[in-house]
């Protein structure tokens, strides 16, 4: 991050935090105004559940055990973003077609938008927020920055989570293999060549992922 202190294209940590805080506050205000129900669905037709009808859920998220009460209809993605404020995991299509919502469940990459939260009882969830070691970025995060593996950045958390698995699964042995095994993560900016370079670099560098 030191290479781009506070530039427009790559704002430094302080700017990012400011922007996130602003977004969260804006969303909270918008929420108060337009969405009275925490579980309002896109179609808006179905009522929210009363608290009494929520189901208890225990799971670990980024190493922290959580005990929650959830609507059975809630996807893991919505639980992370709406209930826990972990907005690093992105909602792209919400139908399993883009990979932006990729997280690790018990060490395996999955799509959180096509996972009911209630089915994750006792599981270990890892999101992009849990990948770095404090302020020390994960080697793949470093590599995405080094190789410019993104433009708008919206798909990046999903790309990085998927890339970690791609290497761990042993499917990063050539550019062609990376392209095939990363095909579930779409990048509409078209940063694919740099994403492949970023993954190849970590793989050939032999760093632990």
């Amino acid at each position, binding site marked *: 991050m030191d290479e781009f202190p506070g530039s427009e294209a790559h704002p430094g940590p302080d700017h990012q935090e400011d922007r996130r805080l602003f977004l969260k506050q804006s969303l909270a205000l918008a929420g108060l105004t337009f969405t009275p129900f925490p579980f309002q*669905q*896109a*179609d808006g037709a*179905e*009522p929210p*559940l009363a608290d009494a*009808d929520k*189901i208890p859920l225990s799971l670990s998220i980024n190493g922290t055990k959580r005990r929650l009460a959830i*609507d*059975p*209809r809630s*996807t893991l993605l919505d639980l992370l973003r709406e209930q826990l404020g972990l907005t690093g995991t992105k909602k792209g299509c*919400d*139908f*399993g077609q883009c*990979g932006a919502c*990729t997280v690790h469940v018990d060490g*395996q*990459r*999955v*799509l959180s938008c*096509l*996972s*009911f939260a*209630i*089915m994750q*009882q006792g599981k270990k969830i890892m999101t992009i927020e849990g990948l770095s070691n404090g302020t020390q970025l994960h080697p793949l995060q470093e590599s995405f920055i080094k190789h410019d593996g993104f433009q708008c950045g919206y798909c990046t958390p999903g790309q990085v989570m*998927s890339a970690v*698995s*791609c290497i761990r*699964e042993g*499917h990063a042995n050539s550019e062609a293999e990376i*392209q*095939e*095994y*990363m*095909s*579930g*993560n779409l990048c509409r900016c078209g940063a694919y060549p740099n994403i492949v370079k970023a993954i190849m670099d970590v793989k050939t560098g032999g760093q632990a992922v």
Partner: protein
Amino acid sequence: MKPFQYVRPTRLKDAIEAVASDPNARYIAGGTNLIDLMKRGIDSSEKLVDINGLPLKKIEKRNGFLRIGALALNSQVAQHKLVLENHPLLAQALNAGASGQLRNMATVGGNILQRTRCPYFYDPVFPCNKRKPGAGCGALEGINRTHAIFGVSKNDPTQSCIAVHPSDFCVALSALDATVVAVGIQGERRIPFSNFHRLPENRPDLDTNLEKGELIVAVEIPDAVFTKHIHYLKIRDRASYAFALVSVATALDLENNRIKSARLALGGVAHKPWRLLEVEKSLVGQPVSEATFRKAAELAMQGAKAFEHNTYKLTLTPNAIIQALKNAVALV
């Protein structure tokens, strides 16, 4: 999404009773197709019976066949030693489907039971006989470029369905003569793969011959000699992560450069995996040559019928068959 009740039984019997006794109950395993359908309001089950607590994950060699548990994940099957040793065609087909993430979620049973990706089935604005029998078919006069060319109802197509089965895995299972093991209230039964999925006819809402409440517990693939000359060819709109326009699963056993036995099935062309038994028979005893494969492809296309936007499949399909057979025997 409609509210639903969620239960997670740990005994097979309890799971089956929960679904058999309730017309609005449904099993859920990986959820990759069902959650998608529920979000879009295409499926409105009121009770989900999560079967992930059942011991159905095992992949094992038994006397005469390989048995794959219904809850084995697509990614686990695709890299399993017994699968790669005995039926590598299955691994090829699985790896041609979906993405790394989805293969980590999708189960064997769910793959077999996945529903068509016909855009008219997915869009409630259009009529669809599969969603609502008797409503009509949006695809018949619509953009039907991904649709069927085989097995379309001759009686009244407006009351039927021209959608295709989307699975790659099932095309390979069909070619390898798999058997589906299902358990219901009445006990266990074995369904030959050719009789598992249905043609649409007058009940396009039914994809398979499973009874209400019956649960797939495993698939069994008989021991075979098809480990060397195999190929799964998938033609799609982009290089990866797309459903097949046409796919071909083929397996050959050769002796002195002649075909001793052959297996051939197509995907993306019919309401069910399209096994080509007649073509397989015609290949037996023939020399390995492009001429042989051309003749086979010609025979395979008998009875094909295209709609306005999928006439290209009448050319693409035989070409794909020839290419798959050539790839299987490394004929350049």
